[in-house]
């Protein structure tokens, strides 16, 4: 837009009603999807509050029913009402597996996002605020981490510590912080120059105090945006690892591993891959939309993220 900045805002002051509704839908739908998925993950069963027999999942996700294998979803011809989304090759209830899969997929991505955001933020602020050699060093490491294929590291870890839930978490975390570090550094650099930081320095605040009392609150917005956008990325990454057999160990279901299980059956039992695949797509989209929405709301400058 060529019109000056001040004017641009005014153009939108009188939004049409339909536009407003659509704008809100881009918040409501993704948020609803994410909340729904989290509820599903939490209430797959209530074992964690001592009620293992109550839950959303109608069946044990790992119980096999070989005589009912590869049944289509119940709403299709040939489906059985016991299996809402059909069954896989061992006759396991796909619906229950997808519900339990939400637990693994979401928990992996949330844990990874938490870990990477924490490390990335600390390093980013340190780098941006301290500057100088620390900055140069951290940024070089970040550059390498950003361009190092995480898949290789996942393989290395798989070999070194064996497969498992925490291997996946670790594999996704080891390099994941770099994106945060780079972005947070840029933000910190900007904030470092502002008056209140100078003021704090003048009155003798310690480096750590300045970093976390003054700089951190000013980057929280950007941080939230990236963290939201990362939900989809992490789910996809976990799915890719599972596809290659480097993911969560069987029989535990994650969305990625169910898609991977179903890939050899795609030509005759599309539902195995399709439903967890749709879940992945939904959550990825929801995360991206929500991230975009929050970004537009909080910090439109971050368009390029």
């Amino acid at each position, binding site marked *: 837009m060529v019109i000056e900045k001040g004017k641009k805002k005014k153009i939108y002051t009188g939004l049409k009603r339909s536009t407003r509704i659509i704008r809100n839908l881009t918040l409501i739908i993704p948020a609803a999807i994410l909340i729904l998925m989290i509820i599903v993950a939490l209430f797959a069963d209530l074992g964690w509050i001592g009620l293992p027999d109550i839950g959303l999942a109608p069946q044990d996700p790992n119980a096999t029913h070989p005589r009912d294998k590869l049944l289509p979803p119940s709403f299709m011809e040939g489906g059985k009402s016991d299996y809402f989304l059909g069954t896989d090759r061992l006759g396991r209830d796909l619906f229950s597996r997808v519900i339990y899969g939400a637990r693994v997929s979401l928990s992996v991505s949330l844990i990874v996002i938490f870990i990477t955001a924490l490390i990335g933020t600390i390093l980013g602020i340190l780098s941006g605020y301290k500057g100088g050699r620390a900055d140069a060093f951290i940024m070089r490491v970040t550059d390498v981490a950003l361009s190092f294929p995480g898949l290789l590291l996942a393989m290395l870890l798989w070999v070194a510590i064996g497969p498992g839930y925490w291997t996946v978490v670790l594999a996704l975390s080891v390099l994941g912080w770099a994106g945060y570090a780079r972005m947070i550094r840029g933000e910190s650099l900007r904030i470092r120059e502002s008056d209140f930081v100078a003021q704090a320095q003048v009155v003798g605040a310690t480096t750590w105090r300045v970093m976390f009392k003054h700089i951190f609150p000013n980057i929280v917005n950007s941080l939230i945006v990236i963290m939201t956008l990362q939900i989809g990325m992490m789910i996809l990454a976990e799915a890719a690892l599972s596809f290659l057999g480097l993911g969560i160990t069987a029989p535990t279901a994650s969305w990625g591993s169910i898609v991977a299980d179903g890939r050899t059956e795609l*030509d005759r039992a599309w539902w195995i891959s399709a439903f967890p695949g749709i879940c992945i797509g939904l959550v990825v989209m929801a995360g991206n939309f929500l991230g975009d929405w929050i970004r537009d709301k909080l910090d439109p400058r971050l368009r390029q993220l």
Partner: protein
Amino acid sequence: MKRWFLVPLFLLLAAVMVVTSCGGDETTPATTTPTTTQPTTTEPTTTEPTTTEPTPTVTTPEPIVPTGTLTAVTADFGFASTDPIFFESLWGWSWSDSLLRWDENNNFIPGVAYDWNFDEATCTWTFYITEGIKFHNGEDLTAEDVKFSVDRFGADPPWISLNPWSQYISYAYNKADSIVVDDYTYQFVAEYPEACQQVVFAWTRILPKDYFDEVGQDGFRAFPIGSGPWKFKELIPNTSITLEANADYWRPDEIPYYQYYVELMVPEQATRINMLRTGECDIALGVDYDRIPELRSQGYATVNAGVAGTSSISFQGTWFPSAGATGNINVRKAMSYALDRQEIADTWYDGFAKPGGQWYMVEGCFGWTDELTPDPYDPGLATQLLEAAGYPDAFDDPVIHIYTTAAGQDYHLLLISYWEAIGLQVQLEIVDSTISTAYIFHNFAGRIEETDPNVGWIFSWTYNSYFNSTYHCANLYTSRGIHGSGNDPVADAMYNDVTHTADIEEADRLFAEFQLYVKTLYINIGIVEFDILTVYNPATVGDWTGRNWVSYQDALNGIKHPGQ
């Protein structure tokens, strides 16, 4: 940036995902049980009568002219060795000849040796070698080569350390001397009379001694030659192996019909099936049973190997106190009664199997008796047995471990669900192939130790069977075996009797008795005996007349062109 337009877009996308997936469904009829269940099996016919005429030389009555290329796809080249000394190198069977062979009725028939006899007084096997057999490099196959090959086959580790057959054989290699009498006569002096030793002679592939000496073991493995119907052409690791027909093969009626045989390694089953459908391959190996009805209905044919395969589980180190729950025979028995073998045969194997499958024992094989019946499905009895064993309270760690590689995951999850149904706690351990091999074979380095991590663990074994499995059974059931399962003196003694008789029929009877006894030990539980099916495209591949009861590789030269 306004993204509202992406909402309907995503819905569209989701629809596309479903629709494209459905697309697959339309063309594939939902697992219809084939009404035309006539397996396109070609009954193996004996191509060579057991000639006992004196000194036949190679004659050439109208030889086959090999043409065209036969392409097969397989999941894995496995150990990928070109050295026929390795059990895993089934390819080696294609380019070498063995000293003896066997027919589909489990009789030993001539191989490179056109005649042989055993003199019980001197404990000597004498082999008469067919004259005029030439290796692929044009050199004659003589008794020197036979001696070299037999000696190498039974030699001690470490230089052949990865061969589990020779591993056992080298412990119990019943050999006193190995003599070249003349160019075409070879004698093997045994320490005691053993009719079953013919198995070893049938396994021994004859290698060209001079060539081997000249290029060394590595050179030989890089470019192996033999006297077989196929010549080794090229091996690209993890990619492809190419064989070329030996148009001058000394058995003219066994010259391959195809000029080239190409085997591609394609790990993904879906890809293999797709390649079959697009005509990129003629034969697809390693196709799951529950896909075969569908493929048949689409016009693809299957050929059934003459010898079935078995699937069983074995317990390791059960006699050690650290074995845990599996140390108790009632627990092991319960695990057997918990399995609904018929259901497994009907579902996992889609009806191409039947209950049975004790370690390498298939109907009609050496040592077979009809009394060797599988345990029935009886979860009630299984539960009682568990109670008798005091499971789970009587055990510090009631969790039972069963291990497999990632490829076997689903099948094991199926087995586990039966055991969990009667209250057993079973943990699946996915290990990589190295660890798995190490556990199963104890790295070919001897017995299981009490401290080994796999003590009390279970391995499952799904393999093609053989006409005579005495040596395999030694490895599993006797205390000298390498699978870490056997530790029973009675079984050892009975096995000793089997291998210390000069009469093959007597050995057969003794082996059957041995089988009935070891079954009661519950260190191996048979699950099913299954058909070994190879899927091929009848539009591009004709009849299979080869020795398919030995192995797929031995059947290759008998595959005809369509309409041939």
